[in-house]
């Protein structure tokens, strides 16, 4: 058989500008939307359309954020928050993964727990936070526990999803190739479920963060969320907004990195039907 040569279509002639616009228009428009919203907020607060005491202009927010970053007054709080969230993530990923594998292996248990798993995120787990404080003491552990509870089910469900979505045909191929159980899991099941497991890890990170900062905001003596609440209670708007801005930038960047990594993983490892 003659090898099939991929023919490249002859590119149509387009002016440089038009071509650039078409390729990059989504990113450009997105940046424009963000820039415009920021501009509107800036104008609104400076012109007094919004009460400029309650809502300071974004430029001042950024300056405040910068000052905070340079001064380093909140270094301990940042560290506390990150460590609590980090610990919660690690626990959630490990136990969530094991839980997911367990559910995969025991379909009966899975069937029984199914409605619970599906409704887990319907209930406000937050309300357990005071109880966690009573049980674990007034320290960082209730926050870690809260982050863990928030994230573990997402990790388990995604692990389960990944394991279930391994196409049957790949497992039959493993049997055809005389691969033992261990080899089958290591060489086929795990690589095939990796994209979903990564989604689980991504969600664990996001949810842990939300839970820890939320918990600190509601009831805590230290940490980033607490500092935001403290600034609010003391009518220290510039600090409050500065801290919020830092939080926004951090969460935004973290999400962007995780999202890009996830896209990269899915691109190559999950087949989309082409033919």
């Amino acid at each position, binding site marked *: *058989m*003659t*090898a*099939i*040569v991929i023919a490249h279509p002859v590119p149509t002639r387009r002016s440089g500008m038009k071509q650039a616009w078409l390729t990059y228009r989504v990113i450009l428009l997105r940046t424009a939307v963000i820039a415009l919203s920021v501009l509107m907020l800036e104008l609104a607060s400076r012109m007094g359309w919004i009460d400029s005491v309650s809502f300071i202009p974004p430029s001042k927010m950024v300056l405040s954020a910068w000052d905070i970053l340079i001064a380093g007054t909140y270094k301990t709080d940042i560290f506390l928050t990150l460590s609590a969230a980090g610990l919660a993530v690690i626990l959630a990923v490990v136990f969530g993964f094991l839980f997911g594998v367990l559910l995969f292996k025991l379909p009966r248990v899975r069937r029984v727990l199914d409605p619970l798993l599906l409704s887990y995120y319907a209930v406000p787990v937050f309300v357990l936070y005071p109880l966690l404080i009573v049980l674990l003491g007034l320290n960082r552990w209730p926050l870690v526990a809260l982050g863990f509870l928030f994230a573990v089910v997402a990790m388990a469900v995604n692990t389960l999803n990944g394991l279930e979505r391994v*196409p*049957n*045909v*790949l497992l*039959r*191929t493993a*049997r*055809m*190739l*005389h*691969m033992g159980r261990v*080899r089958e899991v290591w060489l*086929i099941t795990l*690589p*095939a479920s*990796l994209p979903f497991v990564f989604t689980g890890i991504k969600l664990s990170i996001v949810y842990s963060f939300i839970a820890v900062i939320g918990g600190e905001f509601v009831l805590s003596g230290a940490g980033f969320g607490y500092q935001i609440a403290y600034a609010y209670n003391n009518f220290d708007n510039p600090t409050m907004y500065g801290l919020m801005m830092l939080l926004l930038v951090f969460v935004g960047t973290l999400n962007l990195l995780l999202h890009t990594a996830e896209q990269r993983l899915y*691109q*190559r*490892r*999950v*087949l*989309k*039907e*082409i*033919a």
Partner: protein
Amino acid sequence: MTTARMVPFPRRPTAVSAPIASDAKIHVAIKEATRIFTARDTGRPFHALGPVTFELREGEFFSVVGPSGCGKSTLLDLVAGLCPPSSGTIHFEGNPVIGEVPDGVAVVFQEDACFPWLNVFDNAAFGVRRSGLPENEIKERVDHALHFMGLASFAGVYPSQLSGGMRQRVCIARAMVLRPRLMLLDEPFGALDQQTRLLMGEETLKLWRDTGSTIMLITHSIDEAVLLSDRIGVMSSCPGTFIDIVETGWSHERDSQTAMDPRYGALQAKIWGMLREESIKALRVKS
């Protein structure tokens, strides 16, 4: 076949232009094999296949045609050792086949079994990678197989970048690399368009001649079966049994020109005559 730098398969001696002699060695012997499933939700038994009795002669090209749902794929699973028969026996090269795929058997499945996280070369090499073969021999085998299937220039490409037909060719290449004595193909060209199927049919014939292995092809296409095979097993509707086994008598060196042979049309009509009623039955049963 394309360029040089190919390592030829070790050939099994067969007469070049005569059809497979009817006293050739028996490769696979199936006696009264049946397969009864238990429906998971209702617990009721479901008689999917059998009883089936036939023999595969060594080096022959055998096709199984039948209406959909008649148990053709189940038959392939039984021969491959992917599931045990509920009753009856299956022997491959004299040894019983129960629940485990015997050495020397390769299967190409209906669905595409490419691993999306490996490129084409690694996909094809996957089967022999852990069998202790030296790396250079693996490379030779894989290069030969990829050349043969027309995928030589795609060795570094990932399955997500290939069309369905090309992915299926990768799976066939993977089976080739194993150098099996028996190749089982479960409707491998089902998802392809007619023209690609005809080309792939020619490729399969070349593969068969080049390797000398026994081939069992499951297909729902009567023309494909008649064109390619030495013998055709015609299956009834579910539970599938063989209505008849038809000899085509084509020469070993056949190609798609066989369609011009006057016997071709007659064979097709004969098989359709047997299958028409069965297909109607299958249509009625499907909800």
